[in-house]
C-alpha cells in the first residue's frame, strides 16, 4: 500500500486532447466537450464556453459516474461504460476513458444521440491511448514543484485561513 500519488497534465497533452475533442464536436455537431478526472477535477473544456460552474460540474460528474459504477456492479457488470442524461433542450453523454477520466459531451437538438455515441466511440479509443501513455509517464518519474513553492503556499494558507 502506498500514499497518495500525483499526476500532471502538460501543455502538449492539452494540445493533443484539444485537437481530438474539436474534431469530435465538429463531427458530432455537439456544443461542448469536457474531460473530468475520476476524482472530480476538470481537465479540459473545448467548444462553447459552458454557462455553469465548471468546478461544481466536474465534482458532480465524477460522483455521478462513481455511483453508477456501483449500480453496475450490483447487476454483475464491471461498469457502465457510458451514461446518458436527457433534458428538454440540452443533454449529456458521458463515457469512460481508461478508467481514470470521463469524457462529457454536451449537445442539443441540432444533433442526435446516435451520432454523438458513434463519434464518441472513436475518440474514446484515441483518448484512452493518450491517457495510458500519460499515466505511464507519471509512474516512471517523480514530479515536484519548483523550489519556493511550499513556503509561498504556506504564507498564503496563513493569510487565508488565519495564523
Amino acid at each position, binding site marked *: *500500500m*502506498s*500514499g*497518495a*500519488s*500525483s*499526476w*500532471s*497534465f*502538460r*501543455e502538449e*497533452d*492539452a*494540445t493533443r486532447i484539444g485537437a481530438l475533442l474539436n474534431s469530435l464536436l465538429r463531427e458530432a455537431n455537439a456544443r461542448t466537450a469536457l474531460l473530468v*478526472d*475520476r*476524482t*472530480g*477535477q476538470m*481537465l*479540459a473544456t473545448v467548444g462553447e464556453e459552458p454557462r455553469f*460552474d465548471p*468546478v*461544481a460540474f466536474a*465534482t*458532480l460528474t465524477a*460522483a455521478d459516474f*462513481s*455511483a453508477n459504477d*456501483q449500480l453496475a456492479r450490483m447487476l454483475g457488470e464491471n461498469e457502465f461504460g457510458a451514461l446518458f442524461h436527457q433534458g428538454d433542450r440540452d443533454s449529456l453523454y458521458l463515457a469512460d476513458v481508461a478508467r481514470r477520466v470521463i469524457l462529457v459531451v454536451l449537445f442539443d437538438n441540432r444533433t442526435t444521440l446516435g451520432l454523438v455515441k458513434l463519434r464518441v466511440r472513436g475518440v474514446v479509443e484515441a483518448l484512452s491511448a493518450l491517457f495510458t501513455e500519460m499515466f505511464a509517464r507519471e509512474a516512471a518519474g517523480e*514530479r*515536484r*514543484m*519548483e523550489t*519556493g*513553492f*511550499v513556503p*509561498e*503556499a*504556506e504564507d*498564503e*494558507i*496563513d493569510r*487565508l*485561513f*488565519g*495564523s
Partner: protein
Amino acid sequence: MSLINYASREINCKLVYYGPGLGGKTTNLEYIYEKVAPASKGKMISLATETERTLFFDFLPVDLGTIRGFKTRFHLYTVPGQVYYNASRRLILKGVDGVVFVADSQMERLDANLESMQNLYDNMAQHGLDIRRIPFVIQYNKRDLPNAAPLRQLQEDLNPGWAVEDPARQRPVPDPNRPGETLVQEVDGTWVERVSSFEACALRGDGVFDTLRAISKLVLKTIG
C-alpha cells in the same frame, strides 16, 4: 491524488473530512464557507437528505490564489457519517490527498468514533492507500459540551500512534501545533508516531481553521 495541470496552470488537492455521523463534518465546511472571503471560495454543494443529513457528500472549493504561476485550489469534501452509507464514503476517498478525522468528543460517541476510524483504515486500504502515509490530522469536536470525554482518553483511543520502523526517524519530533508535546516519541522502548490533533467547537468556529491550516500545509508539502 493531487493534479498539476501545466496546461491550465492549476493545482488541485482533495481534502476529505471523515468521522462518525453528526460529529460536525458538515459544520466545519459551513463555517469555512461562511468565513472565507467571497473571492476565494466557490459554490458549496451538499447532496443531503430532506432532514439535512449528508447523503453523498458536501463539497467546497477554496482558492489559495496563484502561487509561482499556478492557481492553487483545495477541494474540501465531507463523507456521510452514518454507518449504512459506506459505499458513498468509499467513493469520496478516491484520489484523496489529505484526511481530517472529525471525532465527536461526547462520552457516548466513543464507540462510534472507533468504528468510524476503523472504517477509514479499511476504506483507504480498498483504494490501495495507507492512511499512515498520507497527510492526516484529527479534530476533537464538541469540546464545549459537558459530557465531553477527557482529551487524554480520546488520544489513547483514536491517536495511539504507530511504530516508527525507520531508525533515521527515531528521534523526538515536536508537535508544531501543541507546544511542549511531541509527535514522535519513545514509549516503553518503542518509537511511536502520532498525528497532529486539534480541539474544536465547530459550531462556534473554534479550531476549524487551525485544523484546515494544518492539513493544507501537510498536503502542499507532499507536492512541493
